[in-house]
């Protein structure tokens, strides 16, 4: 059974040649692979290091102010209306002070704050709990701070819904297609399918073509301010450095990127931005 040195070298040599040859062969078999394709940088896009939003509640005065933002968002993104609050799909919605900033309310606070509605959306947290729990990495954090969801990967386990402390995520218990009116459908944006979770994306598809998020465009002037938190001269940072703002549930440590200017208008005058 033993082989001598000469035979061993022969076998080793032949194996090496066969190995190198087969690489070429495999390359030939993969003739469908592309060679010259590439991606081009998108020069139209709005970019940032960390996108953030300031919600100035003093600018929202009538119920229509809220509804216009909600409608704009839900129409743009083909958000269905199941007609049942239990399985409602919401990207941007409203709730009371007590529910928005739990633990902060007391019985002597101004009536208009106590009873007013607050504009709520995904907080695009710096430490998103939803991203940590997602078993398929369908939910992930982009480099620009946006917490994004890859619908192709979502398996509908709803861990993210349990993890999110802000209730920003909704589950499609039914086929959403059947609940969007034919004439309302935005043909440039997909719908979702039954069994996936969805939420606000800070309008990544609009940022990519140089547009502000849909809700920001529809909000009363200065009501929703969108900008780069890492850029000291951005509109967002100017407001944050001059006006007192709070975030939802800061003690949980998720570091939300949505800030609220709370208070009746006389207390929250935003200085003119130079």
């Amino acid at each position: 059974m033993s082989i001598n040195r000469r035979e061993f070298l022969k076998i080793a040599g032949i194996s090496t040649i066969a190995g190198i040859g087969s690489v070429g062969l495999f390359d030939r078999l993969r003739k469908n692979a592309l060679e010259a394709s590439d991606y081009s940088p998108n020069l139209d896009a709005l970019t940032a290091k960390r996108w953030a939003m300031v919600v100035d509640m003093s600018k929202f005065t009538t119920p229509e102010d809220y509804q216009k933002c909600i409608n704009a968002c839900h129409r743009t993104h083909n958000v269905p209306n199941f007609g049942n609050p239990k399985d409602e799909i919401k990207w941007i919605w409203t709730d009371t002070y007590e529910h928005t900033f739990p633990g902060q309310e007391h019985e002597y606070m101004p009536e208009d704050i106590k009873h007013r509605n607050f504009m709520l959306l995904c907080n695009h947290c710096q430490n998103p709990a939803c991203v940590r729990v997602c078993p398929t990495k369908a939910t992930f954090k982009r480099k620009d701070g946006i917490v994004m969801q890859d619908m192709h990967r979502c398996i509908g386990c709803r861990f993210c819904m349990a993890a999110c402390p802000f209730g920003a995520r909704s589950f499609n218990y039914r086929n959403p297609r059947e609940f969007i009116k034919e004439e309302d459908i935005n043909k440039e944006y997909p719908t979702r399918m039954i069994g996936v979770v969805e939420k606000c994306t800070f309008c990544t598809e609009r940022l990519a073509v140089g547009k502000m998020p849909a809700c920001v465009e529809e909000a009363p002037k200065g009501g929703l301010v969108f900008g780069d938190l890492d850029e000291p001269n951005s509109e967002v940072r100017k407001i944050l450095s001059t006006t007192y703002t709070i975030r939802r549930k800061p003690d949980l440590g998720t570091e939300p990127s949505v800030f609220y200017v709370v208070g009746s208008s006389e207390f929250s005058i935003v200085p003119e931005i130079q």
Partner: protein
Amino acid sequence: MYDGGKIIIGLIIFLALLTFPFYYNIGKVNAKPEPKIDTPEIQKLPVGERKCVESKEFMRGGHMQLLNEWRDSVVRDDKRIYVNSQGKKHNMSLQNECIRCHSNKKDFCDKCHNYMAVKPYCWTCHIEPKEKKS
């Protein structure tokens, strides 16, 4: 072997039945699916510009890999502009780019997919082009 004759006859009948579809179809060519690429949108283009993102041969064999690459690149890396092997730029979007020319899902996508019995689930979310019912 008890009842050997019966068993062998039974086996022959069984094999004949099993292989019947093969004999029956010998010499008959199945109609090849021929996806149509003569949509009004393509007809409107000048002849020189009637080109897909990549060559016909590549798209035939590799459109699914290309689309997979596109969706990952757009959704996960936010890279949305594709430069093809001719250096031409394309917006990476099934719903907004592919369909712009191939507005005939039934005569284009479905033709081959039905023939091959594959069921891609693109259109459960992406909105398919409006077609005249034929």
